[in-house]
């Protein structure tokens, strides 16, 4: 039995295999419509979510399986003080696989240590979000054809943005990747990511506060939201929330094949007017996320 807590729990070969499966699902959806018949996915969401939870649920339904679960902590016994370990031991009695989101960092790891079925981290606080990264990787693969020799701009909240941390970890294993980290000083990438990944593996990167200066160099622009729920101090959030807003005029100097990505939800950091630009890929990410989650569920359940 295996769980996926961090994107690095998957080898490069396994990610390649998941991408191949996802592409096959896209081409031949009927082939997969009964693969998880009589299997149940439990979605344990202790924190609100639209995309991730619905994506997991849609993925399981499209594989012919069923879904149980809750969508907020106050709909579960967590509201009565039940521990994560006890919750997943209970759910393991009902479900074949668990997808968990929790506001506390490391909660899915604790869950995986207690559960008797596979646990997928569907986001733990500002820490990791491996299935978003799988969605991001499939999007990059389908848009760019490979993961090599790309200049990737990561913009916005790089401190608390869990999707950014996971994506850096994943892309750092490919050759020729160059990161441009665009953020206000207060929301820079944490030292543990800079030191343990970028510096450790000699990945070229530069840090800047200037999105426009970076724009012409980018093959990928990954925008992020400044997340209100990660701040203890409302004033800090208000001061930083509008640091970067992508509008059509800011794309004037961008490459014609730029891929604009965002894990969503957005608030105002990408103008709605950008949605009509052919380089906008963020809703493709949403769809790709479902296919990658289908592939991951198949892998963890050992379904051929």
């Amino acid at each position, binding site marked *: 039995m295996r769980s996926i807590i961090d994107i690095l729990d998957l080898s490069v070969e396994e990610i390649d295999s998941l991408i191949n499966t996802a592409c096959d699902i896209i081409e031949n959806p009927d082939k997969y419509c009964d693969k998880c018949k009589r299997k149940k996915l439990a979605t344990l969401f202790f924190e609100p979510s639209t995309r991730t939870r619905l994506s997991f649920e849609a993925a399981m339904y499209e594989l012919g399986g069923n879904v149980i679960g809750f969508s907020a902590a106050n709909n579960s016994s967590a509201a009565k003080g039940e*521990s*994560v*370990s006890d919750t997943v031991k209970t759910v393991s009695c009902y479900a074949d696989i668990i997808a968990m989101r*929790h*506001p*506390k*960092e*490391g*909660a899915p*790891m*604790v869950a995986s240590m207690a559960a008797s079925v596979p646990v997928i981290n569907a986001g*733990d*606080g*500002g*820490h990791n979000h491996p299935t978003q990264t799988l969605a991001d990787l499939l999007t990059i693969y389908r848009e760019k054809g490979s993961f090599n020799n790309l200049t990737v701009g990561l913009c916005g909240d790089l401190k608390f943005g869990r999707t950014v941390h996971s994506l850096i970890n994943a892309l750092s294993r490919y050759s020729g990747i160059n990161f441009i980290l665009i953020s206000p000083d207060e929301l820079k990438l944490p*030292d*543990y990511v800079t*030191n*343990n990944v970028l510096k450790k593996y000699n990945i070229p990167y530069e840090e800047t506060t200037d999105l426009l200066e970076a724009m012409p160099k980018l093959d990928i622009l990954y925008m992020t939201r400044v997340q209100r729920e990660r701040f203890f101090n409302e004033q800090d959030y208000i001061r930083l929330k509008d640091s970067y807003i992508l509008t059509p005029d800011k794309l004037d100097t961008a490459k014609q094949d730029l891929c604009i990505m965002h894990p969503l939800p957005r608030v105002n950091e990408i103008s709605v007017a950008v949605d009509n630009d052919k380089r906008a890929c963020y809703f493709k990410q949403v769809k790709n996320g479902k296919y990658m989650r289908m592939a991951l569920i198949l892998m963890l359940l050992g379904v051929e």
Partner: protein
Amino acid sequence: MVIDSISNGIVIDHITSGKSMVLYRYLNLEKLTCSVAIIKNAPSSKNGKKDIIKIDELIDINVDMLGYLDPGVSVNIIKDGVIVNKFQPELPERLIGVIKCKNPRCISQEEQELTHIFKLTDREKRIYRCIYCEAGSSAVN
């Protein structure tokens, strides 16, 4: 100053001068009923001064804790007046239940009876990270 030699017990030698009380507290030596001698600022050919702790009983000591708190110490196990084992604890790869994660966003802050576990991620800089949230903690110098 003369402290009686011990026939069955443990001598923790080469403690960084001034750290013996920190080790005493972390190793819970105050709970022992046997004789425990703390020698502070003893002459040391290597560092000028050192502390020594002598425990007049063979007890299980937390070697990981010692390695984490003061990796330069040497531990002598004495039986029938003879040193039967001498070793220097290294900075351990994992710290299990030794230090607590201080990240308020970490699950270890609220999960009932969860053991705090840290892994060594940078031996040179003596950096440990919580296995749950990856928040860092530097080993005590």
